[in-house]
């Protein structure tokens, strides 16, 4: 695993914008960064791929155990939704994707830092933009990235399943469209769903209506299947949250994903699979973790409110936090590098690299393309 310095393509802004990445620079700070790239060996990619699928299997086991035991309270999920989530799991409501954030230095086993199971982003960059970069800049090399094809295949599977339930179904896709990155991500998901044969409609999450009987779009047509780039933990607590229990619509990501989409799952995984090479010790109490650790909020995103705690540092435990052993990211040229490894339809599908000058990856951290030989 190495970080290479290289010259960016002279017209790179126009090229990435043409692919939908018009958020490549934020407030003058670069987000898409192609003046560098990460290089891996094929063997290292194998390691990442195997770790991703192992983690996925463990996560599914964790969902099954928590649902069976009725122990969803430890995940801060409102009790009223427990039977609904359990039923979603019993049906095995289909999911599309997720992204595991891993600490990996090319030597030690990849370690799970967190799982973005509900609203992962950086999808367009990983699936599309870095693929086109590879074609132009490293044409003889390979890349761990079959996201685009796997997404289309997965949406085709879902289309076949949906047709059995509601023939002629339409897919609605929703998010917070005032956020450019979110809008582009949903648009990309719409693109792959269209290519899979779905008729689609976009609408902002605030435009979803309730007519007293079911959820509707702006044409007052019923919503049968909804892809949402919007967190479950917000929807449950908003005005229409209670209606989720009343209207049986197919939602991606499905309700059972809530079990995985908060960091409280990390202590559960450690309890179930202690000393697994791809897991880090994690607990609800700081004192259960030896040495330096990281305090993470259950529902934080992109590094928000993540705090490093020193080896001998004592803190007051917070009920909305978990504590995870520290696994520093590898540093290349002063950049802390994070592996974002994607799972689509239960299979490892590709990865994207993020880097930052700081040890905690945030929403401002750069996306850097990769290749392997």
């Amino acid at each position, binding site marked *: 695993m190495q970080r290479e310095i290289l010259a960016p393509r002279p017209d790179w802004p126009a090229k990435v914008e043409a692919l939908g990445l018009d958020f490549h620079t934020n407030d003058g700070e670069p987000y898409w960064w192609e003046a560098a790239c990460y290089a891996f060996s094929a063997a290292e990619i194998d390691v990442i791929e195997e770790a991703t699928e192992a983690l996925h299997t463990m996560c599914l086991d964790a969902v099954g155990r928590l649902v069976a035991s009725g122990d969803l309270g430890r995940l801060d999920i409102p009790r009223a939704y427990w039977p609904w989530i359990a039923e979603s799991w019993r049906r095995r409501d289909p999911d599309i994707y997720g992204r595991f954030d891993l600490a990996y230095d090319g030597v030690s086993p990849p370690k799970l830092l967190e799982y973005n199971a509900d609203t992962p982003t950086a999808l367009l960059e990983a699936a599309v933009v870095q693929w086109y970069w590879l074609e132009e800049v490293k044409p003889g090399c390979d890349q761990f990235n079959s996201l685009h094809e796997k997404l289309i295949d997965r949406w085709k599977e879902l289309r076949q399943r949906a047709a059995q339930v509601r023939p002629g179904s339409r897919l609605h896709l929703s998010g917070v469209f005032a956020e450019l990155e979110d809008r582009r991500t949903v648009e990309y998901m*719409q693109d792959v769903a269209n290519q899979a044969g779905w008729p689609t409609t976009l609408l902002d999450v605030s435009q979803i209506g309730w007519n007293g009987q079911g959820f509707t779009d702006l044409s007052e047509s019923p919503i049968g299947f909804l892809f949402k780039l919007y967190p479950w933990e917000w929807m449950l607590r908003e005005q229409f949250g209670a209606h989720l229990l009343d209207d049986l619509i197919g939602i991606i990501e499905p309700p059972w994903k809530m079990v995985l989409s908060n960091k409280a799952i990390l202590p559960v995984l450690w309890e179930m699979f202690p000393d697994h090479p791809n897991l880090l010790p994690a607990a609800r109490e700081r004192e259960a973790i030896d040495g330096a650790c990281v305090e993470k909020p259950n529902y934080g995103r992109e590094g928000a409110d993540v705090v490093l705690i020193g080896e001998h540092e004592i803190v007051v435990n917070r009920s909305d936090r978990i504590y995870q052993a520290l696994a520093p990211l590898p540093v290349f040229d002063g950049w802390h590098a994070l592996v974002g490894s994607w799972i689509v339809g239960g299979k490892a599908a590709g990865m994207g690299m993020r880097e930052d000058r700081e040890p905690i990856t945030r929403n401002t951290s750069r996306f850097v393309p990769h290749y392997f030989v």
Partner: protein
Amino acid sequence: MNRVSDSRRSNIVMLSLIGLPIATIAAANMIPAGTQMRRNNYQDRAACERDYPPQQCEQASSGGGGGSSGGGWGYHGPYYSASRSTATTNDPGPGRSGVTPASYETSTRGGFGAFGRGIRAVG
């Protein structure tokens, strides 16, 4: 299995929608929580067009929600905020004729999205 010989990248990545104008997305103005929306029902297109431009008059579908009367209407206009004081700038309003509609449908919107107005939704 010899993974080293297997290519791991997509064979082809084609996009059909990215980069297109976002006209297909309905007005991106976020709708406040609990906003009641209405749309007028009309017997025919001509009646609708007395209130709205032609492109805002749609033939009624079989789906429908709560409202002041049942079915049997041929056309409806666009949704507008039931409360004029909270209407957004691109709200089409109840119709330029000023005539109270004989029938309208109601729907509540804005029930999702309150958290998303101030916090990043993705990770």
